């Protein structure tokens, strides 16, 4: 039995189908990347998995059917990082991280001192040490994203859903975020589903990739083991003509790089 199984999931907005018949499963310790062009249904899929969107089909985490869980139970098992957090109030970064402890607190309870210490440590872990008291609204978009990551990591959930978490991050923090995720995954039983825009990160950090096109699964690939020509063929369905190259950094670690092949020139005949 798999750690997390999704079967025959279909969802849409207002009767218009966006996702059709999505099925996949992942094992404990797996970082599953979702790749797809804009509008292919990545965000919709993550929202449906989080049960934030009405859908057909079922998602089963260990023995829990996610659709049947109340928000409180769901939040104990799963964490979610939206593309952009909707926090619009002036509150401190530490208070944002402390929100993550809500599933472990009763309605009127306040966060304990131990939780505050843990939250401050989580902020340090994502690279925001010393910024506990800063107003969340004054942080940059990337720092906000890291703050939300800290909130999600420190709450003891087993399955994370991340929607383009790297989009606002600079070069260094993109790697930092995925390394943090990989480190988080080493303590089983845990798994994460992450939608990514950057194919380089997807190819080098994810254990498995799910390719999404027009609301359907185009295929799935394992960057570590699959032969390059198969990956090239699948990826070019999403990105157009591409080729993969393997590079080695100074420490001897191999990286897969995706190169865009020249395509027919775009004739911009819109203007007269």
């Amino acid at each position: 039995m798999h750690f997390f199984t999704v079967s025959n999931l279909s969802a849409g907005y207002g009767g218009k189908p966006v996702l059709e018949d999505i099925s996949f499963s992942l094992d404990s310790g797996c970082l599953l990347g979702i790749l797809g062009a804009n509008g292919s249904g990545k965000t919709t899929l993550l929202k449906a998995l989080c049960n934030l969107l009405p859908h057909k089909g079922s998602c089963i985490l260990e023995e829990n059917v996610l659709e049947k869980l109340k928000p409180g139970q769901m939040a104990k098992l799963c964490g979610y990082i939206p593309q952009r957090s909707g926090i619009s109030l002036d509150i401190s970064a530490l208070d944002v991280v402390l929100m993550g402890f809500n599933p472990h607190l009763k309605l009127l309870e306040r966060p304990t001192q131990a939780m505050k210490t843990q939250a401050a440590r989580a902020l340090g872990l994502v690279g925001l040490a010393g910024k506990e008291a800063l107003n969340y609204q004054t942080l940059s978009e990337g720092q906000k994203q890291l703050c939300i990551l800290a909130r999600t990591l420190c709450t003891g959930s087993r399955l994370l859903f991340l929607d383009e978490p790297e989009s606002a991050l600079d070069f260094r923090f993109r790697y930092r975020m995925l390394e943090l995720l990989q480190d988080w995954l080493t303590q089983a039983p845990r798994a994460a589903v992450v939608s990514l825009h950057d194919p380089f990160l997807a190819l080098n950090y994810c254990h498995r990739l799910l390719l999404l096109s027009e609301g359907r699964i185009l295929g799935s690939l394992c960057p570590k083991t699959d032969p390059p020509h198969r990956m090239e063929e699948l990826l070019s369905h999403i990105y157009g003509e591409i080729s993969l190259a393997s590079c080695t950094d100074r420490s001897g670690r191999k990286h897969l790089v995706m190169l865009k092949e020249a395509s027919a020139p775009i004739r911009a005949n819109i203007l007269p």
Partner: protein
Amino acid sequence: MRYKLLCALCSGLLAALILLSLFTGKYPLRLEELLGGNELHRRVFLNLRASRTLVGAMGGFALGVSGFVYQTVFRNPLASPDIIGVSSGASAGAAAGILFFSGAAAVTVSAFLGALGAVAVVLTLSALDKTGRNSSIVLAGIAVHALAQTVLMCLKLTADPERELASIEYWIMGSLNGVSIHSLGGNLLLCLLCLIGLFLLHRQIILLSGEEGEARMLGVSVGKIRLLVLLTATLTVSSVVSLTGLISFVGLLAPHGARLLTKDNRPGTMALAGLLGGVLLLGADILARSVSAVELPVSIFTSLLGAPFLISLIGRRSS
């Protein structure tokens, strides 16, 4: 430390206003007469001044705190009790009370029921929208507000222009005049309990301020908690407004003032919003009964005092 200083400052100001309010009015009260056991002085003090001061301070506090809650939950800096129909429901209720029943207590009860009725309709209507968005509550609020205004207009048409219509208009303008110590016990107790509830719910109120899916994934049963918070805030406002009539601007201004001063949204800021509300309402009421020979509606002065204060805070922020 900033909070403690600000809250202490506001509490001191409020205490000074409470003292001033106790000894301001048409009948000149003197402390030595009051302590000397003068019966008339004692009656004026208890029946008129003490009750009026209590309603002013606590009512202002309640309006400030509930304004903070509405603005936070609706993520709208202009949100006020009007947004879910509290004020217009209370007005229609009060008008019905003035027309069909007699006595101040009946009008209070009727206004209270009107406010709760309007909010109940709003929340029921918004529940029809299964997506459970905030905007559906706001839309339902606008519809019910319009409906309550229509009811109010019809009631005004049937009112006797000499007495009843004047009372309705006067009620809507709001005043702390005529609240008596005998009729306000229930209201103030309810108000106090709901205020305690709102402070206990502060963490949930902040969680509700985020995007709905995000709040859900943080374990918040958004629909239920929002209902709980809104009902508590509505009971708080209704218990005040049914005694005093509509009071404009306090619920809008006090929370903004508090936020501009502290620049955050912790429970201390919520308390500061309450204290500023108390200062504003009590200060306005002192002016309302001392500026001219006749008693003036308190809302004139809440706006008159409040607007420059808010503008000065905005000016300070931008500099």
